[in-house]
């Protein structure tokens, strides 16, 4: 019984993943190499040319999505780090209150939050209308349906996923380590770059995982805040699947996206030093 215990513990989660992740993935992999249409049915052909075709047709949207994901992630780090730092070291007894505030937006539906941006940023809306009447921006200036709006929406929606892991990493740093650095005549900035920053990197890594991947695959922000030149690969996959019912193309695009993400993330982990980072992030 004792020997079985670990397996029994992993059974519910393992079965869940097996049935709802592995089986559909295998099924979708099979779909991606089928040919046909919804009227005549799809037949397995093991023809991989659909991958090449899909990529050639949608390379712009593909690169754009990865680009948006990268920029969004970098902006998130820049905004999240100071917040996490402040909560971890200056939060005092109110830490949990501040963390709750960070999470508060999650109590409102994702779509609703994004839609509310449309009202805020409308051409004659709350923000732009006064600026226009003061003559600070041109009459035809607009934020909605621009790259800025889409990346802004992405950052807004995923920021907490960056703040929380960085906070956890910073919070775990023993303050005495920093004191020791200062005792050894490190300037405040040196203590930060040589001690605090390296110790917080696993948190940054976890944050990147949790923001870059969903940002790149996101389609809600581009759909609601974007214009004709902001379509992301998530929107394409959705259209191919639901509107065109071209299941092979949708499946092939999904798999390519997954492959690109995995390769990117592993390259990034390796650059930071795989063992340390993956282990520390998991800790």
């Amino acid at each position, binding site marked *: 019984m004792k020997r079985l215990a670990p397996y029994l513990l992993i059974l519910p989660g393992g079965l869940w993943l097996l049935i709802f992740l592995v089986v559909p993935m*295998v*099924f979708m992999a099979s779909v991606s190499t*089928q040919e*046909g249409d919804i*009227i005549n*049915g799809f037949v397995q052909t093991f023809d991989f040319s659909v991958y090449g075709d899909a990529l050639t047709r949608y390379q712009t949207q593909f690169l754009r999505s990865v680009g948006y994901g990268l920029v969004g992630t970098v902006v998130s780090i820049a905004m999240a780090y100071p917040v996490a730092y402040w909560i971890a070291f200056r939060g005092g007894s109110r830490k949990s209150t501040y963390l709750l505030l960070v999470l508060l937006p999650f109590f409102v539906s994702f779509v609703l939050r994004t839609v509310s941006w449309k*009202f805020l940023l409308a051409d004659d809306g709350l923000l732009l209308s006064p600026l226009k009447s003061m003559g600070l921006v041109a009459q*035809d200036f607009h934020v909605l*349906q621009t790259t800025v709006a889409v990346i802004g929406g992405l950052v807004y929606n995923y920021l907490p996923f960056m703040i929380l892991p960085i906070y956890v990493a910073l919070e775990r740093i023993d303050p005495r380590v920093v004191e020791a650095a200062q005792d050894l005549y490190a300037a405040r900035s040196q203590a930060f770059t040589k001690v605090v920053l390296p110790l917080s990197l696993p948190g940054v890594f976890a944050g990147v995982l949790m923001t870059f991947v969903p940002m790149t695959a996101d389609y809600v922000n581009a759909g609601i805040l974007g214009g004709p030149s902001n*379509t992301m690969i998530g929107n394409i996959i959705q259209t191919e699947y639901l509107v065109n019912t071209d299941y092979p193309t949708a499946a092939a695009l999904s798999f390519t996206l997954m492959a690109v993400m995995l390769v990117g993330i592993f390259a990034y982990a390796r650059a930071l030093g795989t063992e340390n980072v993956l282990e520390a992030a998991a800790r």
Partner: protein
Amino acid sequence: MDPRSNPALLRGMTHSRSVTRRDALRLAGLSAAGLALAGCGIQGKKPAATPKKDAVTDFWTGKQRNGTLRFANWPLYIDKDGKKYPSLEMFTADTGIKVSYQEVIQEIPSFFGKIQPLLAAGNDIGHDLMVLTNGIHLGRAIQLDYLAPLDHSKLPNFAANAAQKVKNPPWDPGNAHTIPWTVGLTGIAYNPKYVDEVKSVEDLWNPKYKGKVGMMSDSEEIANFGLFALGVDPDTSTEADWRRAAERLQAQRDTGLVRKYYENDYVDALARGDVWITMAWSGDIFQQVAEGKDLKFVVPQEGGTIWTDNMCIPRTAQNPVDALTYMDYVYQPKIATILVEAINYITPVPATKDLVLADAAKQSGEDRTALEQLANSPMIYPSEADMARLRSYVTLDGAKEKAFESIFQPITQG
């Protein structure tokens, strides 16, 4: 392992089931070897070469009225009084059939995406009656034989009261599977504060309105406007016409004229001032105007699109007889009048116009003006001249559809 030869497997993949030990073993085997699934396909269904003559009798034999109807419709698409639906209550009082009314359709592709696997597996979708717009997806539903063939001997009100124009549409000859719920127009709406009088589709290409032009994201909608701009009738358009139309639309996009390719949300964008001139649906603009917004709607001189939202019964409906009873019920002029006064789209029952005016005469003040506006609005009762300029979407079958989408989709999906 081919689902086409093993319907049980296909069903297992598409809906829940109780798992026996043998099933569990089978499932384990299935997931263990990825190869097990290789060689699978997804079942399709070619239409029978000639529809069977007795399809109607086959379907309806042995079916009875059950006293319940589950009706799936779009939001804001029926009369409502607080939380009650007066016309549905009248239906229940007259027939004894209780209606569960569900506002679950927001957009055809995603709704079709949800019900398609269930219909393919021959399962109940939870609705006995649904309202689908004519177009690619309704065409598919008919081709795949997902819809019950209508028994027109049970639709006397439809035969007597429906407008000639809505009978026997090209996408469903002889109304074999569908009859209209409402009819709408796609034209141009604009804000007269920023835009001079609009007569032509060319105004959507006017550089004065750069970045303030709204177009629709639906391929069938923009294709028609591209074709109107070329002076081509969508009914007789060829693939070469489509390419030329796509070029014009691409140019409109590339020069930065188009703010966005919108779904339903173009109304908000127009109301908020994000766009000044946009492709629009008649009923939406009528409602905005009725609420006091200063907006105009025109059917361009080159042409506008007429589309129909159709009532149809999924083949797997639990209460098809009740659904058919309701379909005929709403074709009584007095019921159709209640509906048009609430919905503000074009009714398939022309006799309602006089009834709306009669209702108006009974009212006074604002209510009276509103009803008179409705009866006299070209958006609800289009003039002969407007009607003559209206065209349907391009009729597409399987192979053409793929070409069509590959030409027009890249424009909206840049």
